[in-house]
């Protein structure tokens, strides 16, 4: 019996598209173990994107769980025309956007009910919820404070620009893949990334001057 379960052969570092497609097809046939392998392979990245979107760990965790639930429901609709990762990130961005819109609507309603913005003034500083750096040697390359400042600067970008830069610089996506994930044109991606970087440059200018970047 030489046949192997594709789910067991999918490692995190494996970039082989063929292996991922095999696992996806197995999951589409209802193999829960294969689906779990996909979750393990992509959960960190989905969580990272969600965290950059929400800047709240719990919200990002809930959103990530929601993303994989959506993926499980819609897996049969994935035809393989795009990379699975691209499709997954598209689901991630859409899920984050939907959750954000719902939260905004709910918050607006709550503010109306409570009668004012006083609660917002007392809201917890989102910067205090920045993720702890991963204590792996790979991530110790960057100073924790520096990382926090960059993350704070990223948080000040408009949502679409932030997500484009995260996908491009953080996830190393090509512009056409970003356009597919974000459901927009290539020129919008090009402009969005450039404007986002210009704004980041302004926000991080002191660090650049000090030679910390």
């Amino acid at each position: 019996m030489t046949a192997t379960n594709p789910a067991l052969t999918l490692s995190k570092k494996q970039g082989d598209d063929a292996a991922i497609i095999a696992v996806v097809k197995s999951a589409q046939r209802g193999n829960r173990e294969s689906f779990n392998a996909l979750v393990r392979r992509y959960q960190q990245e989905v969580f990272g994107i969600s965290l950059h979107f929400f800047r709240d760990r719990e919200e990002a965790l809930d959103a990530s769980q929601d993303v994989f639930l959506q993926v499980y429901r819609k897996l049969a609709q994935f035809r393989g025309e795009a990379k699975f990762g691209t499709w997954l990130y598209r689901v991630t961005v859409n899920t984050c956007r939907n959750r954000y819109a719902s939260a905004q609507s709910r918050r607006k309603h709550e503010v109306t009910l409570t009668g004012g913005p006083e609660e917002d003034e007392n809201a917890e500083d989102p910067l205090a919820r920045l993720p702890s750096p991963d204590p792996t040697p790979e991530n110790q390359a960057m100073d924790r404070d520096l990382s926090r400042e960059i993350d704070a600067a990223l948080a000040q970008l408009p949502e679409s620009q932030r997500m484009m830069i995260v996908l491009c610089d953080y996830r190393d996506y090509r512009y056409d893949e970003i356009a597919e994930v974000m459901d927009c044109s290539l020129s919008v991606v090009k402009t969005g990334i450039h404007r986002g970087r210009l704004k980041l440059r302004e926000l991080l200018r002191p660090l650049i001057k000090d030679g910390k970047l």
Partner: protein
Amino acid sequence: MNDCRDVRDNLSAWIDGELPAAELLAVERHLVACPDCRAEADDLRRVQLAVTKMPLPFLPRDMVVDINRAIDADELVARRPVKPAWRRPAVMGSLAAAAMVVMMLTYTLPWLLVDKLSPALDREQAPAPAGVVPDRTGAPVANAGRGSGQLTVELPVPEPAPVHQEEVAVAVNAPSAVNREGAPAALPAAAPAPVPAVARPVVPAPAPAADALPKSTYNATDGARAAVADEGASRLAAPMAVAPVSSPPGPSAMAEGNVVMSAPAPGAAVRSALLANQARGVNIGGNSVTAIMPVLSLKRLRSHVAPRMVSTSTVAGDSESVRVTIPIVP
């Protein structure tokens, strides 16, 4: 593409290796020659590298267990048998609301339409001998015919109980029939008999008042009594008087009986109705009765006298009163 502005717009794409070959060469040539654009390109590259080196966020736990739990719960919900459409809460609510509306209409519509229906029924019944015309709900409407003695008597919907529960004395000034319940004997062929009513034939009796009615019409069992008379009897002296027999004819009789005068009635009957509704200065003229009464009593008056018979005018210096004029039988 030697313009600095064009080059700077393409710097991020150049850094990311996303420029087509021709534009790539143009940008690189310009950067060699332009220190400002080169400095901006350096800054942008630093920013890009800084974001690239950002650490991965720390995932606090393996999400597989939570996700599988969520999927199981989701599938459990999906497997739950779907209720038939009519048992879903929204549909049930709609059905209940519709049922309530139907019930409300069933009980209120006859009373809302009673004044409007009466004239139409009068016209329909005019050529025929007068009789009881049940309305749509089965509430009997006694029609006494057209002319000076035209009379429509509308009685409340009877309870589905023994018929002799209410004492009614009827005196009619017309060769007509006044009847309770939908009695087949006095009805057109199509008229239904909603309850086993006792048909009381037409009442052209000489007695003007309820007290003068024949004893034979008195039902000792339940105290009910109706004014009935032989078919050949002469016209009643009073063209109209309808009142519960248990009360003496007069204001209270007109006020408390569920009777609506929808045609000119004797002056005395109209006067009684007015007095029962706090009218003052009642003046019986040749063809009408005038009086002054509180505005608030008008509504109650109109439950005894058809609104179309009551004409009103203001009273100078008294905004809370109104002058009413009601036509009567000369």
